[in-house]
């Protein structure tokens, strides 16, 4: 029976279904509603956990790390500047191979100050060694949160569930909430093999010399690559219980014979679904939803691109001085592949800029250009800028 829930409220309930023992967080818009809802569940006695309201995001991530290393299931959430303040800890959590889950309520990174949605924050920490799953709607956010704990605990890798701020976190949606039995049958109690324990004292976080460092990095990289199978398995097993799949690493929808593909990530996918049905005269397109950005599903991407002549890559962040981040990785994955489509890379919806439905006919027009856009910020109005900056 679907319930009308705000994204943050649904995510909080999903976290509670995972029975976290320690939750640590620091307030930042638009993450706040998630933690407020968790706090209320604790206050109402519906969730029994240690709720630690810390003095910074840096400590929020550190408290979660300390708790998970000491054998308790841990959770945190943040956004934007908070993700960047956590950055050093995020690398540390992943490098120590500590399984925990956090939600990133995606928001632009200042300056200029913006509280609105884009994905510059999670993209800024893409090399931290975390698994990153992106959700296209709130149902996916609920399901991915529960799946994330199983993936994290089986791979000993932390998982960041990325949910577009406001667009998803503050939006009401009809959601099928799983029940506790479903969650429990899917997610066994936390049992961290390397947990700190006075009966079996171990040292975690030692100094590693050049004799061992490359091997550690290799094993971390390999663990992320190997995690692809766990991400797919978690999604399939969850589908067996609930009938819902989040799309594994990457999923394809729309006309399978279309020559134009649009690859995107997060809530943009939902906008595109609507746009395609709104403008049938613009022709068919294959919609590729990238769910797992780390690990990056190169093989699945190649498969999804078979038969395409044009591929539009839409993303909500950029690497200034280079261009698109996902676009660059897609190019790398398709480099040298015979018959690979031309790639048109755009950043959309930066700092909460609305993504209008007519983006679809405009993109379908743009792909006809004889020279594809290497990278451009979509919808940028140059007239707002001084001549020298255009």
């Amino acid at each position, binding site marked *: 029976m679907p319930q009308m829930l705000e994204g943050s409220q649904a995510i909080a309930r999903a976290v509670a279904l995972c029975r976290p*023992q*320690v939750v*640590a967080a620091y307030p930042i818009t638009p993450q706040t509603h998630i933690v407020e809802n968790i706090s209320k569940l604790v206050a109402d006695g519906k969730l029994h*956990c*240690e709720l*630690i*309201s*810390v*003095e*910074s995001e*840096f*400590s929020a991530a*550190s*408290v*979660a*790390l*300390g*708790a*998970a*290393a*000491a*054998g*308790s299931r*841990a959770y945190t959430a943040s956004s934007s500047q908070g993700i960047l303040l956590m950055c*050093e*800890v995020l690398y*540390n959590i992943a490098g*120590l191979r500590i399984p925990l889950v956090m939600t990133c309520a995606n928001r632009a990174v200042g300056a200029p100050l913006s509280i609105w949605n884009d994905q510059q924050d999670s993209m800024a920490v893409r090399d931290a060694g975390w698994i990153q799953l992106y959700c296209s709607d709130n149902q996916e956010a609920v399901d991915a949160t529960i799946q994330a704990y199983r993936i994290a605990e089986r791979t000993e890798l932390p998982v960041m569930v990325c949910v577009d701020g406001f667009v998803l976190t503050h939006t009401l949606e009809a959601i099928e909430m799983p029940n506790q039995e479903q969650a429990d049958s899917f997610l066994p109690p936390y049992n961290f093999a390397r947990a*700190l*324990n*006075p*009966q*079996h*004292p*171990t*040292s*975690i*976080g*030692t*100094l*590693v*010399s050049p004799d*061992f460092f490359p091997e550690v990095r290799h094993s971390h990289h390999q663990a992320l690559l190997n995690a692809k199978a766990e991400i797919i398995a978690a999604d399939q097993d969850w589908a067996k219980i609930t009938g819902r799949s989040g799309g594994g690493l990457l999923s394809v929808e729309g006309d399978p014979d279309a020559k134009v593909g649009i690859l995107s990530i997060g809530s943009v996918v939902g906008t595109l679904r609507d746009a395609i049905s709104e403008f049938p005269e613009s022709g068919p397109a294959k919609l590729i939803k990238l769910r797992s950005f780390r690990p990056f599903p190169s093989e699945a991407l190649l498969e999804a691109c078979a038969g395409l002549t044009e591929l539009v890559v839409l993303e909500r962040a950029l690497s200034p001085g280079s261009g698109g981040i996902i676009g660059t990785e897609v190019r790398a994955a398709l480099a040298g592949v015979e018959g690979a489509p031309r790639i048109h890379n755009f950043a959309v919806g930066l700092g909460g800029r609305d993504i209008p439905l007519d983006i679809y006919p405009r993109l379908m027009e743009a792909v006809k250009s004889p020279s594809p856009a290497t990278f451009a910020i979509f919808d940028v109005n140059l007239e707002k800028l001084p001549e020298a900056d255009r």
Partner: protein
Amino acid sequence: MNEISIPLSELRRKQPRFAGLESGHRACLGCGQALAARLVTEAAGPDVMISNATGCLEVFTTPWPESAWRLPWMHSLFENAAAIASGMEAAMKAQGKSTKVIAMGGDGSTFDIGFQALSGMLERNHNVLYVCYDNEAYMNTGIQRSSSTPHAAATTTSPVGKERMGKRHLKKDIISIIAAHHVAYAATASVAYPSDIRKKVRRAMAIEGASFLQIHAPCPLGWGHDGAVSIEVARLAVQTGLFPLIELERGELTGAMPLRTPKPVAEYLKAQQRFGHLFKDDPRALEELEHLQAIANHHIEIYGLRGDGVDSYDSEGADTVRRGGIRWA
């Protein structure tokens, strides 16, 4: 890696002989921090979990694949030892376990970069003992000044020259700041007084809540003295009044080790190269010596250190050590 497989109750019985930090680590000769860490872990016993900030202690005890620790130990970062400890403590609480969490860091991670996380941990009153090994500079990175470096001390970033006489600022009064959090117990100690360290660690271990211990720990390399005289140098810091040994409960002074006849600060300073410029023929040197003596006098005054006659509290202090000390407090 060593594994303890006998029950905790048995280990507790053997507590005085328990060594949480084994020999064989790579600390320098005469390292005050290594000695202090051993004393703290001996007194704390085996039912303990450690969060260690980045610094010498972390580096010299755990060159992979070796570890000198016989306790569950984690190093995460420079500035989050107190937050990691908060998380460990929350986990112990969630699991219904009584294992005590001890956070450890040097003065850099405590006074400076980890200060915010420490304040947060104290404010939330986690059941954590935070131990600061205070060697008064960033020794692990090569003797740079910290906010704990004493006034006029020379470091690589507060060098002596035509325009400078070492560090221009005062040593941060960390213990007062900690006490202002109104934690149940905050104290200073010195490696020159091992039984006092043990007593204070046990006191802190018995408290359900946040406690803090600042241990003055010489760094022969950074202070410029022979490793063989670390204890003598540390003792002079106490005996001159420059490093008073005090206890504060809920922010109130409840104990201080008295000094019958405080020594002039020059005795402590001249034993170390970092203050060598204060004993050159330079009018500025005299002025700085006066400043440092004034700081010591101020400590003696505010903490009432000048005891007269027989002092019933002076059982484990300087006189005890002069008599040869007692092995276990």
